[in-house]
């Protein structure tokens, strides 16, 4: 009578500690510190209580500027990624610990050492989100400076990751004998030996962190360009996407998963995880009302004007955010107004964008602020816990993603309600774990431990158990 049902996919959930962007509402009385460790500890413990796969931290290496001044309207400032993740390993037991670390202003030996150390110190919970997109402006904080053009950043990133993998693999897992009776600590004097000669790195020696519980940290990648998709398909364990609508999500999912076979990989070796914000209410109507309030908190009049400036490439501070859009056209010169921000895709043709926005605003009688609120990022999930749980499940079962990275708008308590109300409903639906089944992040994500180049179980039970 009915078709045999596809087995239910298990949903992967992660939590992004909210930070430097205007989705983070700092003006709310419930908003706490985004710097104090107690905030991170609360957030991580909530994510672990909810049996999430991992916690995710973004990175920033230069304070943003607008019009030559430090941008002061959003949350400004954040702690160091590695240091926070290592401290969080002390207050959690199973939660994966994922950090964005760029490949432009770091060196492979040092980053590999830090991730391998974090993997040891967390008993196999480390993950690295490899990013590339940093500019000369950011480079002014670093020894090498910002000399890499866009295309070389990607080639450096690829070589950086390949080199780091060589270092992770340079110990095979059986070198540490540590036999007091014979006095043999290492079975191999050349443990960790590596040589890498390439376009960007010419390095050799011996890596000084023995193989970590996961072998290698889990590798995440973000990025939507053709190159980014290929990079992820070739070597990442998970990709962060920005597609949180069903249709776009399905298209991205099909495209990226379709690339795996070419790299000799299977469908389940790369997880697709869009970032998603959410607003929960007692009813769908409550949530919709609350979502409108949140949007107004996220987009103050001043923020609205600054967002418009990205398109107009002009100082618009004299305009009234509650008034009509500027009737002057955008400045088409070089865009130096906002620095330290990712290039926003929609602003490639500012004249067309301005025309479209003016028409929209006129037709709807929107002020500048209304326009930014209405056209800006919308919350991905708005509704009662039942609605949100059902929507997430439908999205994943329809192959629009393998799960979500949830970004609450309040630090650090913004995840609490989700953990308490949505997660139990997902568990009831049989699509989300009620208990961690393994101990490492690879276990949570259903990823195999990378094969060691050689070796046996002699390294000890920890490596074998993971």
């Amino acid at each position, binding site marked *: 009578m009915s078709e045999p049902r596809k087995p239910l996919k298990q949903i992967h959930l992660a939590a992004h500690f909210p930070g430097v962007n205007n989705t983070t509402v700092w003006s709310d009385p419930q908003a706490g510190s985004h710097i104090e460790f107690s905030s991170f500890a609360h957030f991580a413990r909530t994510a672990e209580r909810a049996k999430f796969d991992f916690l995710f931290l973004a990175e920033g290496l230069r304070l943003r500027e607008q019009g030559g001044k430090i941008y002061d309207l959003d949350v*400004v400032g954040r702690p160091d990624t590695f240091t926070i993740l290592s401290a969080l390993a002390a207050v959690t037991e199973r939660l994966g610990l994922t950090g964005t670390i760029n490949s432009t*202003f770091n060196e492979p030996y*040092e980053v590999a050492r830090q991730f391998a150390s974090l993997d040891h*110190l967390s008993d196999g919970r480390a993950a690295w989100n490899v990013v590339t997109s940093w500019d000369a402006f950011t480079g002014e904080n670093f020894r090498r400076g910002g000399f890499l053009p866009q295309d070389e950043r990607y080639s450096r990133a690829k070589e950086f990751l390949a080199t780091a993998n060589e270092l992770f693999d340079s110990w095979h897992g059986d070198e540490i004998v540590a036999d*007091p009776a014979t006095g*043999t600590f290492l079975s191999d*004097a050349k443990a960790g030996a590596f040589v890498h000669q390439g376009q960007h790195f010419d*390095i050799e020696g011996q890596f*000084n962190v023995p193989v970590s519980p996961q072998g290698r940290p889990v590798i995440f990648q973000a990025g939507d360009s053709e190159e980014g998709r290929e990079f992820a398909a070739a070597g990442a364990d998970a990709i962060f996407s920005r597609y949180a609508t069903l249709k776009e999500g399905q298209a991205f999912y099909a495209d990226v998963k379709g690339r795996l076979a070419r790299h000799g990989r299977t469908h389940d070796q790369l997880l697709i995880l869009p970032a998603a914000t959410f607003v929960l209410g007692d009813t769908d109507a409550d949530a919709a009302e609350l979502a409108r309030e949140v949007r107004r908190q996220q987009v103050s009049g001043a923020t609205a004007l600054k967002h418009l400036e990205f398109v107009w490439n002009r100082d618009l501070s004299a305009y009234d955010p509650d008034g009509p859009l500027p009737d002057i056209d955008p400045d088409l010169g070089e865009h130096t107004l906002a620095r330290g921000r990712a290039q926003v895709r929609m602003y490639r043709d500012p004249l067309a964008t301005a025309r479209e926005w003016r028409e929209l605003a006129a037709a709807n009688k929107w002020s500048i602020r209304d326009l930014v609120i209405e056209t800006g990022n919308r919350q991905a999930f708005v509704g009662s816990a039942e609605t949100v749980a059902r929507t997430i499940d439908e999205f994943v079962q329809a192959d629009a993603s393998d799960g979500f990275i949830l970004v609450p708008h309040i630090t650090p308590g913004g995840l609490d309600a989700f953990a308490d109300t949505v997660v139990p409903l997902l568990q009831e639906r049989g699509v989300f774990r009620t208990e961690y089944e393994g101990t490492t992040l690879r276990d949570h994500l259903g990823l195999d431990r990378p094969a060691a180049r050689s070796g046996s179980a002699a390294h*000890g039970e920890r490596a074998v158990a993971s």
Partner: protein
Amino acid sequence: MSSVPSSALPSSSSALHLAVALDGAGWHPAAWREPVARPRDLLTAGYWTDLVTEAERGLLDFVTIEDALGLQSTHFTEPDGRTDQVRGRLDAVLIAARVAPLTSHIGLLPTVVATHTEPFHISKAIATLDYVSTGRGGVRIQVSARRNEAAHFGRRTVPSFRIEDLESPAVQELTVDLFDEAADYVEAVRRLWDSWEDGAEIRDVATGRFVDREKLHYIDFEGAHFSVKGPSITPRPPQGQPPVGALAHESVTGAPFRLLGRSADLGFVTPHDAGQARAIVASVRAEQDAAGRAGEPLHLFGDLVVFLDDDPAEAAARKERLDTLAGYPYTSDARIFTGTPSQLADLLQELGEAGLTGFRLRPAVAGHDLPAITRGLVPELQRRGVFRHAYEADTLRGLLGLARPANRYAAAAAVAADAAADAVTTA
């Protein structure tokens, strides 16, 4: 925190500061072969937590955590290919951060190699260590003249040399360059810590401003090896300036002591007797004067490798036994002490009178000599009235008697405002 009335604290003139230097299974190369050692645990969080917790039980001021960007080696600039000693270690900053939430009073000074890392990254890492430990972070800055470590980065080359070549002109030039770069490094890190004034985060809902950008500062550091624009992305750490330490030996170039004089809150030095201690203290104080820091606190900690037992013969025999296992007599830049806690207390008091303000003890066998310090030496020093009975401060600066420094940019802004006010009133 627990505290005692200030009258119960030893007076500052007689009080010793005490730290331990943690490195693998201990400082003796055969330490890992002792029954008490846990050689298969050296890469686990539990091992480090146990060590630091033990040090905190002894009310020590802080621990340092050794590190390097290459495998351990008995050779001065190269790997030695040995397989009979501990090889492999974890990043010290991450170890310190991992232990921080599980301790409450002890200071944490991981080692950072200035030669191959980025001051911007390290500044935010140590600031964050200070946040995760609520004011107990610090850093021990080290230079690397190891050729193999340079090859791990591929950005600069270092010649091969032996320890006997240290005073050759080429190696002297290298040493001066590395230490001067380290001084620049510390300066950039310190400016980054000050690049946010206290209270820069204002969360002013009325104007929509999260920070007062007048309280954020570009540091515009320009040095021979790097430049850094700033400001930091991490707000000023709880201590304002986490303490910076460095190990320094005598050199004809004077570069290591100059680094202490210019840049450090804590100097680790290696006198073998009271006379040497006096000479070293005088040299470092002269460098401090030359750097224009005459009045500023600069702790000088004497480093000692220690074998502690209840019977002095037992301690000496233990060293001999380990030397036999290692296949050679262990030597060190620091004095190697074998004896009882009481004998060590005598020595520390004697050296202390030569002008050292504290000691950093290097346990020969971590599993044996660290508990001997915390449970043998510390009670002995307490009986003599020269060591604390309880932690008297919540921050590392507090334990060391260092005030929380004013922010240099806030001070500069205040001076500029005064000058502007003067200009107005005199116009």
